[in-house]
């Protein structure tokens, strides 16, 4: 019995993916665990492995196409089966997704076209088709979670600083159209707009007070800017970090400490390692954070709405800058791994991150993240938490400065760590305890070898 295979969830935050490459083609036999395609998600290129047995009878998706989660990508069955009905079902916009995505994306309503009428009307009564109009709902997204707005309305909303979610659409199916945006901007009567798009809004709206967020200011000529299309990754970063900063109540704790013992310890370690590798200051901080999370397990947790989920294992994510974005590969069980192993893993993950060669499981599942901008001479900074984690550690650079030692001012070194905490999970005192343990271990780094 042939079946439709949908696009599986290949990362926790994935909503769609680009089918980069089909490994299997029509006519190939597959069995569970076989690699069938490579899919670029919001995070990386992932392997799409099949969990069914059969022969590939049809592919719905071409290489390079973007596919919604759960949308049909292939048909599996026995050679020679009649799959016409399945193909039609899979190609139909309302096809039932094979895997239930968390937020089903409904297709836009399709207006019945006159050509689709089963019987042509007799010539004598050939009425011109009337526009299809649905009752306009109130403000907010249309049913199905999609905000319906004309391209011009969207363009104008950016220009006038209007949040489309606050606008009531007066077009078919509640579509927000130009006049609705202008009405929201002026709170004036809804009339046919006679202003050209480039004209200044007649009334300075309250929303336009956030004019600094507008992309284009009045009077600028086209050609004064260029729009660089956002990659899938960029869009995900934008959405996720906006969400994190907006929904997670951050607070920040900072500690300065003396890294001299840590540097000396690192020198001794690297002498021991010889040409088998190198341990960086960041590796030592990762290890320290992992051990601290084991000692302060309440911070190795996540807010899940009606509970605090405590993780039994410690997986530390490392933020790595790559071209046009960043990824966070994970060192699993970092608290259990020796320093040499952690160092080697981090080096390998960072290298493959830059090559975009990370596998899905390598960039998911972290319980805590470390972000280091020391190499850019950043003294200290505050990082945005990577949900659903409860905290992130921001590592600044090492600076030479006068320090007070035994009542005298002497030359020394200082380093600053900043812990961003999710207040729903971690209170001030708890966060301070975690940071204290991290620093304590870094100031007496032999502890990291325990």
């Amino acid at each position, binding site marked *: 019995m042939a079946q439709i295979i949908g696009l599986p969830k290949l990362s926790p935050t994935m909503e769609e993916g680009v089918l980069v490459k089909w490994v299997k083609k029509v006519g190939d036999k597959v069995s569970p665990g076989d690699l069938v395609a490579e899919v670029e998600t919001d995070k990386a290129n992932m392997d799409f492995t099949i969990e069914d047995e059969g022969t590939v009878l049809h592919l719905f998706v071409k290489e390079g196409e973007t596919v919604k989660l759960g949308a049909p990508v292939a048909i599996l069955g026995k050679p020679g089966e009649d799959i016409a009905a399945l193909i039609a079902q899979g190609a139909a916009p309302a096809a039932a997704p094979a895997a239930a995505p968390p937020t089903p994306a409904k297709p836009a309503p399709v207006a019945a076209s006159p050509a689709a009428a089963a019987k042509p009307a007799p*010539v004598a009564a*050939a009425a011109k088709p009337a526009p299809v109009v649905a009752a306009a709902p109130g403000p907010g997204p249309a049913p199905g979670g999609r905000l319906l707005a004309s391209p011009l309305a*969207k363009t104008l909303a950016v220009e006038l600083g209007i949040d489309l979610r606050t606008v009531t659409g007066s077009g078919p199916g509640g579509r927000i159209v130009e006049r609705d945006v202008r009405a929201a901007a002026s709170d004036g009567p809804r009339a046919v707009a*006679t202003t050209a798009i480039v004209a200044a809004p007649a009334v300075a709206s309250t929303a336009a007070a956030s004019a600094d967020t507008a992309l284009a200011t009045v009077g600028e000529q086209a050609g004064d800017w260029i729009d660089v299309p956002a990659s899938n990754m960029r869009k995900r970063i934008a959405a996720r970090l906006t969400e994190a900063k907006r929904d997670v109540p951050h607070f920040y704790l900072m500690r300065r400490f003396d890294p001299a013992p840590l540097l000396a310890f690192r020198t001794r370690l690297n002498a021991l390692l010889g040409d088998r590798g190198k341990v960086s200051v960041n590796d030592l901080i990762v290890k320290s954070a992992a051990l601290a999370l084991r000692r302060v397990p309440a911070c190795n947790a996540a807010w899940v709405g009606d509970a605090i989920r405590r993780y039994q294992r410690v997986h530390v994510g490392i933020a790595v800058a790559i071209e046009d974005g960043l990824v966070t590969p994970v060192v699993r069980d970092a608290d259990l791994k020796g320093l040499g192993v952690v160092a080697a893993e981090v080096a390998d993950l960072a290298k493959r991150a830059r090559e975009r060669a990370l596998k899905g499981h390598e960039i998911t599942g972290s319980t805590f993240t470390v972000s280091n901008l020391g190499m850019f001479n950043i003294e200290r900074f505050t990082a945005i938490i990577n949900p659903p984690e409860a905290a992130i550690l921001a590592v600044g650079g090492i600076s030479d400065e006068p320090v007070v030692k035994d009542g005298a001012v002497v030359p020394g070194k200082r380093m600053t760590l900043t812990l961003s905490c999710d207040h729903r999970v971690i209170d001030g005192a708890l966060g301070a305890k975690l940071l204290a343990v991290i620093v304590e271990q870094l100031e007496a780094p032999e502890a990291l070898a325990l």
Partner: protein
Amino acid sequence: MAVISYREALNQAMREEMERDQDVFVMGEEVGHYNGAYKVTQGLLQRFSERRVVDTPIAEMGFAGIGVGAAMVGLRPIVEFMTWNFSLVAIDQIVNSAAKMFQMSGGQFNIPIVFRGPSGPAVQVGSQHSQALESWYAHVPGLAVALPSTAYDAKGLLKTAIRDDNPVVFMEGETLYGTTGEVPEAEYLIPFGQGDIKRAGADITLVAWSRMVHVCLDAAKVLADDGIDCEVVDPRTLRPLDVPIIVDSVRKTGRCVIAEVGWPSAGFGAEIAYQVQRHCLDALDAPVERVCSDDVPMPYAKNLEDEVQPQVADVVAAVRRALYLDA
């Protein structure tokens, strides 16, 4: 400036070009002694003799082919079809000989020919004499397709067509011959691929050619009473098509209605709609609307003929849809 008829403007264009160039001649059914079935060639025989104003028997494929052969060796024929409906028995010569010769001969032979005549629905002449075929010809590389809507455009475009070194399909509005307009005394030419704003407006762009320009202008008057300001754009030639003038207008107004007298399926308006969405997506406030004839051969009875053809009311309704006024 003189006010003359569309018919007279075409006659002037031919007369001037025949004076200017000995290689230009007119050929077709009833173009000479009868002075033209639609009187467009009136007086040319008296002026230029039978050598250059050639009455043909009823043999469209034959004389269209003779035109192509004569053009191949350097003459500049103007071949009149009594109506474009009859071009269908000569379409092999237009499409397979005239349009392809330049490419097929490796650029050695160009065909400086004009095929001209009335086109589009007339009044109560039935299915075989009332149809718009510009979309057929605009599909063919190697042809230019011109459809003037005014006397001024008719003269300027026909002179350009006669001087063009490649085949031109020149479609005159059968119901426009008697319309009048200002035409300057001094010589002028209108380049192909250069549209014209027939009415400036801010709220919506109406794209139309030939007779539909006038229907759109009438619709614009009706809509103006409701405070709706229409811009009417006439591309004047469908091939080459002035895409920028349409795009600039739609970027300004944010809405577009395309009105043509042809049938809906694969009509040229669909190509314009494609160009509009391709270049103006972020400026569009509503889907591009099309107004066409109903999808049937033209009936004879007057009431049904009016029913089938796009009327002012149909254009008004499409504009109101595009402005969400009846939502």
